[in-house]
């Protein structure tokens, strides 16, 4: 009986945690006021977690574009279709690689810092002090960081894609000597705005929401100790990465 209860508890705990996380999301969204101070706070966080992630996103995007072109040219040359490289790079970037890789990089760069920051605020009683001042820490601390993440990830994805295309252009045209007219015309005619580009934007919005929610929730529910904050930070990267890949499959199934 005790063993059954233990197994039941073990399996029901993730569901309970997911429920608590959703309740946390609803409490955050209930605090959306669009007041001047809230908008300023969201903009400030967008700078801190979004703009400051820009360099790493751009560097990674550039090299992903280059390596994609390299692999695509190698593969397509076998069929005499190396002029299709921009089509392959564009479609795979806008549909999959841009949103997914940006979300994974964002989880590692910004998600961890958000979890650690909120966890440390909890460990040093700053959240308790806020509650005692009749200030809701979920609205004051968690909401601006969550909203900033949802706004930042699509913008960062756009930058990732732009730099990836640039990397691809430099490699395919500059290094491999492909015709630039062919490259751009294939990209223009083969990549569809609605199906490819907007689909990617939807994905990046959802991924931004997932990574940001996991980051603020784990920070807020972290044990108020050094080890607790460390564990919460690790969990943020692991869980948000897994969830991004799961939701990528689910969304791709519906969007295509």
């Amino acid at each position, binding site marked *: 009986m005790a063993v059954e209860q233990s197994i039941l508890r073990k399996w029901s705990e993730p569901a309970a945690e997911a429920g608590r996380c959703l309740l946390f999301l609803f409490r955050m969204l209930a605090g959306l006021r669009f007041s001047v101070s809230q908008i300023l706070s969201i903009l400030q966080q967008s700078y801190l977690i979004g703009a400051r992630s820009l360099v790493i996103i751009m560097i990674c995007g550039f090299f992903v574009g280059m390596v994609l072109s390299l692999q695509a040219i190698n593969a397509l040359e076998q069929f005499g279709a190396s002029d299709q490289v921009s089509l392959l790079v564009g479609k795979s970037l806008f549909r999959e690689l841009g949103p997914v890789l940006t979300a994974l990089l964002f989880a590692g760069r910004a998600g961890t810092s958000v979890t650690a920051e909120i966890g*440390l605020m909890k460990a040093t009683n*700053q959240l308790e*002090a806020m509650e*005692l*001042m*009749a*200030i809701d820490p979920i609205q004051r601390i968690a909401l601006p960081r969550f909203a900033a993440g949802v706004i930042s990830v699509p913008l960062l994805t756009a930058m990732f894609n732009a730099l990836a295309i640039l990397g691809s252009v430099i490699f395919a045209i500059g290094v491999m000597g492909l015709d630039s007219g062919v490259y751009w015309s294939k990209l223009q005619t083969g990549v569809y705005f609605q199906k490819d580009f907007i689909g990617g934007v939807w994905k990046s919005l959802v991924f931004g929401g997932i990574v940001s929610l996991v980051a603020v929730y784990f920070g807020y529910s972290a044990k108020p100790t050094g080890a607790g904050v460390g564990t919460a930070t690790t969990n943020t990267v692991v869980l948000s990465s897994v969830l991004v890949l799961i939701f990528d499959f689910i969304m791709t199934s519906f969007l295509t």
Partner: protein
Amino acid sequence: MNTDTSTSRKADNTAIRIRDLVFRRGRRTILDGVSMDIPRGSIVAFMGPSGVGKTTILRLISGQLHPDEGSIEVNGQQVSAMSNRELHHFRRDIGVLLQDGALFTDLTVFENIATPVREHTNLPEALIRRLVMSKLNAVGLGGIEERMPHELSGGMARRVAFARAVALDPAIMLYDEPLTGLDPIAVSTIRTLMRETNDALNLTSIVVTHNVDQMRRLVDYCYIIASGRVAGHGPPSELSASADPSVDQFMNGKVEGPIPFHYQPPEGPWGLLD
């Protein structure tokens, strides 16, 4: 008639009334039938050994925890019966100084003190600035408003936290170990601030501490908590000479007495004979 008036006056003079308070964590009973009256305008200490439930009483008064039994009345309002919205309003009238100050580390000293003012008032920025600067000057720290919390010493951080706690001129101040970990000069400074602020604004202050010497110089009245109950109460001078064994042991720092050394007494001699 006279008795009624006298009773009513006495009732009006009680800022915080706690009756038969019981609080449990799991199977463990932390507080078991605690009753106390905190008169308006006084500084009252909750004293006792570490882990006895002093901070728990503060959290019950501020509505962070809910009692299992009994009642807490603050300025005529039942705290345990308050909704979240009522608690929100109630806490605007309470200032809390936590043990480590709990300053917001990403904000300057100025923004730390301005935070509760901005949140709960619609004052223009010029007036907020004047208010914050007056609070900062009152704690003797004028000129440090642009510093970050990590640039302050422990005593300065505690004074800034004090300024933040009184920023909205609360009616009740709750202090959780306010003098712990400070040097003697900082201790005297904070102690003087607490006394002067309490008297000037006619606040009601509760101080949780286990520092007997400091409290003798500061508070008007003491409650000694031991084994989940009020072991004794009275002015600090009277408590030192108390005949109650628990109070005598705590006030005079004796090892032997009813307050045990072991959290849970061992069943055998350290299990060597098991």
